[in-house]
């Protein structure tokens, strides 16, 4: 069994940044093309401020940070399995995406200080449209696009994380 100390944090963060960038690019493209209204930066940033522009800025930074942190988690899984490959990363991405859509999204109105409750109308402090189950409220293609984005994220980490050395090499 390899110790977690074999974890290459630098590689995880680097490729995590890259993978999150690509995930953000895919989601932004799907918004621009009119396929979905899911905006991770806006949803995260609006937790901190009502100002739309600032929310996008804060949310973009926070999403990158989350993406890099998750990359460390992925790396820990790779290290614990002593194995990393693109499809294993992709499988982790499927789990990650499904968890986000099926568990986190329905919970979001309880966690997000500006999101309207699913059961009550909007209030002066809670006006943001809740995503609903699988985030379907943001467009019918949203679950598929979110899943694809996270699979791509996992595939990239599975593919590139081992290049950075660490216990896997």
């Amino acid at each position, binding site marked *: 069994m390899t110790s977690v100390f074999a974890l290459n944090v630098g590689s995880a963060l680097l490729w995590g940044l890259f993978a999150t960038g690509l995930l953000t690019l895919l989601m932004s493209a799907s918004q621009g093309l*009119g396929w979905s209204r899911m905006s991770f930066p806006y949803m995260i940033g609006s937790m901190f401020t009502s100002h739309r522009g600032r929310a996008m800025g804060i949310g973009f930074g926070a999403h990158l940070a989350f993406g890099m942190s998750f990359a460390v988690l992925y790396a820990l899984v790779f290290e614990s399995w002593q194995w990393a490959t693109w499809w294993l990363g992709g499988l982790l991405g499927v789990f990650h995406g499904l968890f986000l859509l099926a568990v986190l999204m329905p919970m979001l109105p309880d966690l997000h200080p500006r999101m309207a409750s699913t059961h009550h109308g909007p209030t002066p402090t809670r006006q943001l*449209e809740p995503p609903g189950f699988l985030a379907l409220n943001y467009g019918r293609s949203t679950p598929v696009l979110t899943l694809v984005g996270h699979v791509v994220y996992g595939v990239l980490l599975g593919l590139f994380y081992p290049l950075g050395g660490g216990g896997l090499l």
Partner: protein
Amino acid sequence: MSGTDDRYVPIEDYAVIGDCASAALVGTDGSIDWLCWPRFDSPSVFAALLDAERGGHFQVRPSREYSVERRYMGDTNVLETTFTTDTGVLRLTDLMPVGPPEAYRRELWPTHEILRRVECVEGTVTVQVVCEPRLEYAQLDPSFDDRGPHGFFYNYDGAVLVVRSEVPLAPSSGQSALHGDQTLRAGDRHFLSLTYDDEAPAVLPLLGDHAQRKLARTINYWRDWAAQCEYEGPYRDAVVRSALTLKLMTFAPSGAIVAAPTTSLPEAIGGERNWDYRYCWLRDAALTLRALYELGYEDEGRAFFSWLLHATRLTAPDLHVMYDVHGNTHLSERTLSHLEGYRASPPVRVGNGAHDQLQLDTYGELISAAYEFVQREHALDDWHRRLLVSLGNEVCARWEEPDEGIWEVRSGRHHHTFSKAMCWVALERLLALHEEGYVSIPADRYRREATKIRAAVDEHGYNEEKESYVATFGGDRLDASLLLLPTYGYEEATSPRMKSTFARIHEELAQNGLLHRYPPDTNDGFTSEEGAFGLCSFWDEEMFARLGRLDEAREKLGETIGYANDLGLFAEEIDPDTGTFLGNFPQAFTHVGLINAAITISKAEEATPLYQHPEPQ
């Protein structure tokens, strides 16, 4: 020229509301018949204006017969329509919420919203609501998703419409329309809201007291803005209304001003003169800038000038006739044959085929705007200088070419006198800026070309027999644009040539106190007969003032303002026989004309100097 079709409200019966990025037309029947989101030139959400059956509308009105009065709430763009029935009085307040920048920092705002307040002020009235969006110019029938307390949602193309209402609404059988009826008693007050968001989760609109605060904030925003108007001369109310209308048609993110928020309202009922005006014309750029600065709206003036140069930088040294609000020029024209057109006057066109015409006068108008800007701001960026010089060189190279002219006729290119005179204006303004040290140009070459242009205009643009400047070189037809020659400093209004031109224009173009832009039988590529041009009538009154005929100027200005609708708004054209409106509505340039005519008359009355033009170099 006007037709009757009960399915359509007369153009003058519409009011406009807006949020400085998009606008809606509201009829005296409480129906929003035109709305494009997210910007002025986006596909429509409601288009009953152009097809009463298929277009879609959002109507709030009493269920019984009524008489109607309406007004804007003071100096605002908040509309109040009062319906009086035999059982009571219902008041409908319509607005697109806006606020000062700090308001957008404090709370979440939908990207766009129409807020409607319906209140019973007397007796008992049953109110009837129909909300029937037909998206993408009535090519998409939405199917609303009922999300209970959050309202009705419709997702399309990465955007979402949300309808929330305190009047209970129920979807129609196909879910594509929402209907509601409710009996209100004196003191009852309900809000309805339609919002638009895209590329992100929607911001759900709040009703009740919060909506009331939003209404108050919007009223304050417009009142504060109107209060900055420094004009104190005659017809101040009409000038302030015109300024408010211009502000409403300003696309705030870029500073561009659209010519009108509508497309294809016909210039001749049953004719084919239907154009898309939801773009920004370079024509009148200098006069628009002058109007903004003279009224004291310096921020709007700077933003407009900045848009002018940023937009034209993309195509310089070629200038297009029009640009969209972000400066794009891909405005190719297409016909929406599934819409029957206002009062069955097809075609309905979107985009504008005139965008790639050659209109040489735009060089003079743009460079005059730059000159106007420098006189007020005393500054010019380096890239502004380079851009202006490239435009000047283009004028030197192309002024001898024929063009389509200021009216964008579709009957081919000609040597238009006004276009050539504006080429002279362009070079003269650049020479003046050169003398003042703002640009560096080959002055000798510019002087030579300016002299040649002036000689050509004086020789070929003036018809000795007719004793008048004429529309085209060697021609004998008149054109109201020639009234602008003194405005741009080409010739003094009191010169013999201008005086006789003024007299001829009155003889041949005036009808019932209004002016046609050119003789109605001119071959402009169309057979139908158009109305009188509101803008030209205001140019006429400026000429009276420049000639020192101040009483006539003031009286005629009052007469022309009398053609405005009950809210003080103008369309592009007016039927001189009936006074009904024709063409797109409301029309920014007509309101610019009103403002400039009033300012010119006011200055002349106070004996303060009119706008100073540089001495010819």
